[in-house]
């Protein structure tokens, strides 16, 4: 069976080096519309470096990252001009940081954080922007009465949900998420996972989720890549990789999970 649709994002032999140090090397995969790809591996395995290379934040030393835009043209994201890349970063790609402080503007209100993304894609009517911001705060389960409060008055879980609202409000096609549930306590994590999962399904969003938490990967990702020392050592259907791991490193990761 062959997929009718073309990949949305395609990594072709991507490699990033910091001087002599390898961030990631020879990573290739295709991401299809509506698909969630999980990237797992221990700290230092190159997950975040790869995510940066894929999301136009770090130009790789080797290989190409090809994105299929809304006009159905396949473009190399590092060969297009800076203005076009900036435009895509505002319209088509969302980036959810592990620490919400990196993805939010802490000195403007929650409503402004969400509204800013809409203004960046051309919204001008204040009432509409505010209305949309209220709607999104409710979707991510933040009390709409907090719309004029600064994010620093929010709890960590609320800040993370606000960051997600800010990123998804402009209708992106791919969400890049770096440890989206890291650093949150488990009850908040569960809520956030449920939220991300339903938003991804409702919006038909594609996503690349970097996590070291295999339970998060199991719940969110259709497909999994396991990284070790900058290389992808195993890839496949999420439950197959986790339940019948083939590579010694994947077996080590899976067998290291504490069962409660």
């Amino acid at each position, binding site marked *: 069976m062959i997929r009718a649709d073309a990949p949305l994002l395609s990594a072709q032999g991507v490699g990033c080096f910091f001087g002599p140090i390898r961030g990631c090397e020879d990573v290739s995969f295709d991401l299809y519309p509506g698909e969630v790809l999980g990237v797992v591996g221990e700290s230092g395995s190159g997950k975040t470096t790869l995510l940066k290379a894929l999301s136009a934040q770090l130009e790789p030393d080797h290989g190409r990252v090809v994105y299929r835009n809304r006009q159905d043209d396949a473009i190399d994201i590092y060969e297009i001009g800076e203005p076009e890349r900036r435009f895509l970063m505002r319209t088509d790609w969302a980036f959810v940081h592990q620490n919400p402080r990196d993805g939010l503007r802490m000195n403007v209100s929650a409503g402004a954080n969400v509204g800013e993304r809409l203004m960046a894609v051309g919204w001008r009517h204040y009432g509409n922007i505010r209305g949309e911001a209220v709607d999104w705060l409710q979707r991510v389960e933040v009390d709409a009465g907090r719309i004029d409060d600064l994010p620093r008055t929010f709890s960590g879980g609320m800040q993370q949900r606000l960051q997600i609202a800010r990123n998804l409000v402009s209708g992106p096609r791919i969400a890049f998420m770096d440890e989206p549930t890291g650093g949150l306590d488990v009850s908040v994590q569960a809520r956030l996972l*449920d939220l991300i999962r339903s938003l991804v399904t409702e919006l038909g969003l594609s996503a690349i989720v970097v996590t070291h938490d295999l339970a998060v990967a199991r719940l969110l990702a259709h497909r999994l890549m396991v990284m070790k020392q900058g290389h992808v050592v195993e890839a496949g259907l999420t439950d197959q990789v986790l*339940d019948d791991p083939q590579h010694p490193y994947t077996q080590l990761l899976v067998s290291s999970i504490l069962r409660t």
Partner: protein
Amino acid sequence: MSDLVTIENLSKRFTLHMQGGVEIPVLSGLSVWVAAGECVALAGPSGSGKSTFMRMIYGNYTCPEGAIRVRHGGEQVDIASADPYTVLDIRRSTLGYVSQFLRVVPRVPTVEIVAEPLIAVGCDKSEACDRAKVLLHRLNLPERLWSLSPLTFSGGEQQRVNIARGFAYPYPILLLDEPTASLDRDNREVVLQMIAEARDRGAAIIGIFHDQEARDAVCTRAFDINSFQAVA
């Protein structure tokens, strides 16, 4: 041909790299065909590879040797060599699996968990939930539990949620791993009836039934997996 599942020359061994690379051979040279309207009971003692075999058919375990062909949308597709996208597509509309364990996202209400397979094939959400409620009702799960997450339910209640979910969409092929375990007599009867109805509508069913009475009630034949034991 009305064979919905064709398994040819399947073998499986596990290599435990964490334990000195020890090899555990499980199955070798297994072939079997299952037609529409058949309910095949996998027979064999504990540890003979019944669950492993089921998981291989579902694409949950890799299949390094042999072919697992299922009829999917009018074509024969080999799960052993299919890409992840195809396996997910097969699971969406062709292949249902009722495992012994319920694995769910915390916080999601029972009725939505049961309705999810229907929503995944494009069914309207309220229609899907209505169908879910009919199943939950049939399986005697008290209505006050429907809006709660099943994580705190008893074993038997979780198993019934699992069964309702597995039967929400009329899959042409069903894999059932001990569907009647941990159920009381009345509920076991309901589940056996549901299996018989699926079989009679033309589903190909492969199941593990430890309970002889259940096996006699719904299965059309037994398949002895023990004769395909791999030897170390």
